[in-house]
């Protein structure tokens, strides 16, 4: 009985890993890392997390969880409510819609598709954000943010891969 309880607890804990890791990364983007000149920019770590888990363990990171993570991001950053939600939900949707691609993906392929989907998601979220704010943000910032996000993908993918191997 006790053993079964712990097994169940263990399983429940493991099922929470992607969600917890993603929220942690979203909180991490808030850290005051003031690299000169790049100050207002951090990669969209949450976006990478949602992509990775939506590809590999969609059962542990369903669309509604992507919604909640987006909400968390919006509430934390003080951005117009909904921009983060659109960002993460659209990413989840893109992956779910193109599930066939990800049957036996190579690393490069995953990276390339992340680049494509991230561009679409970020563009969507930025256009909605600009509409809500009533102002077009700096295009250079958008581009830098995108480059940083795609550039950070290999590191994060490695991290997620390790976590997946160890825990899931």
């Amino acid at each position, binding site marked *: 009985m006790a053993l079964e309880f712990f*097994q*169940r607890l263990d399983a429940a804990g493991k099922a929470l890993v992607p969600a917890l890791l993603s929220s*942690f990364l979203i*909180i*991490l*983007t*808030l*850290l*005051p*890392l*003031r690299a*000169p000149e790049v*100050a*207002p*920019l*951090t990669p969209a770590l949450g976006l990478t997390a949602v992509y990775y888990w939506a590809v590999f363990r969609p059962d542990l990171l*369903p*669309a*509604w969880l992507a*919604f909640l993570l987006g*909400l*968390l991001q*919006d*509430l*934390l*950053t*003080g*951005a*117009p*409510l*909904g*921009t983060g*939600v*659109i960002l993460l*939900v659209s990413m989840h*949707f893109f992956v779910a819609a193109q599930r066939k691609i990800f049957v036996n993906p190579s690393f490069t392929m995953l990276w390339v598709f992340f680049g494509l989907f991230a561009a679409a998601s970020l563009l969507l979220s*930025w256009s*909605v*954000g600009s509409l*809500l*704010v009533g*102002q077009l*943000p*700096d295009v250079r*910032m*958008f581009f830098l*943010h995108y480059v940083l996000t795609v550039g950070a993908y290999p590191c994060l993918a490695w991290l997620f891969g390790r976590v997946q191997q160890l825990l899931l």
Partner: protein
Amino acid sequence: MQKRAGTVARIASPMRALSQRFGLPLLLIATATTIALGQMDARVVERARVFVMDTTTPVLEVLSEPVYAIERATESFRELAELRQINESLKLENERLTAWHHRARRLEAENLRLRSLLALVPDAGARYVSARVIGDPGGAFARSLLVAAGRADGIAEGHVALSGEGVAGRVADVGERAARVMLITDLNSQIPVSIGLSGERAVMAGDNSAEPRLLYLQPGHHVSAGDRVVTSGHGGLFPPDLPIGVVAQVTEEAVRVRPYVDWRDLEYLRLVDYELPGLIAPLIDKQRPSAE
């Protein structure tokens, strides 16, 4: 093991079918609702923001510690390399400041005499709290900082955030142990200012870039680059004469201000309660007698 998986599957599969059938529309509705709530400035949203802020503050506090440690280490290395040069320039500056100091003392004495002459009421003693910056949510649409001080420390909405150099922003949301400071570069920040020696008036409006714009300048104004910009105190959100920055450039389209605050080097902010009446209070007071 096998049996339990079966039960879970039996419960889960109709749920999954349901969520697959209605998942996307439901999510779209939820997203639209979220956006609408955000645009309406609903009370729920503010509560949620404060709640999230309070729960993540401990995490951010712990995580920001090593960040600052590394920053300080690199900073001290850099300083070591530049020590000679810094020393040189400090000596020069010291000379200059000594002269200023004397002048300030003289002016202070003069001011004191004039004040006693006029029987002016001195400024209300402003209370302040020094708070550590623990979060710097970047992004394209807002400029704000999270600081590790909240209602428990006596912080309230509207308190003015100062760095050593000048005005950094205003407290926008307050949680129990954390607060969000809307920076002067934020899109929603609009501050009545006065410029230069002539005291030309304008409103300094942030647009999420590093250099806010000056709006509503008089046509034919005499504002030029290098002019000092300070708060004018109009509107009651800021006390008058707090340093903000200098005019950086004057062009056809815009006059821009470079804030004194060094955003890269912001570890602590001073949150000051000037006990200002706020934007609405004076209006209410004015209306009251006429209503009676």
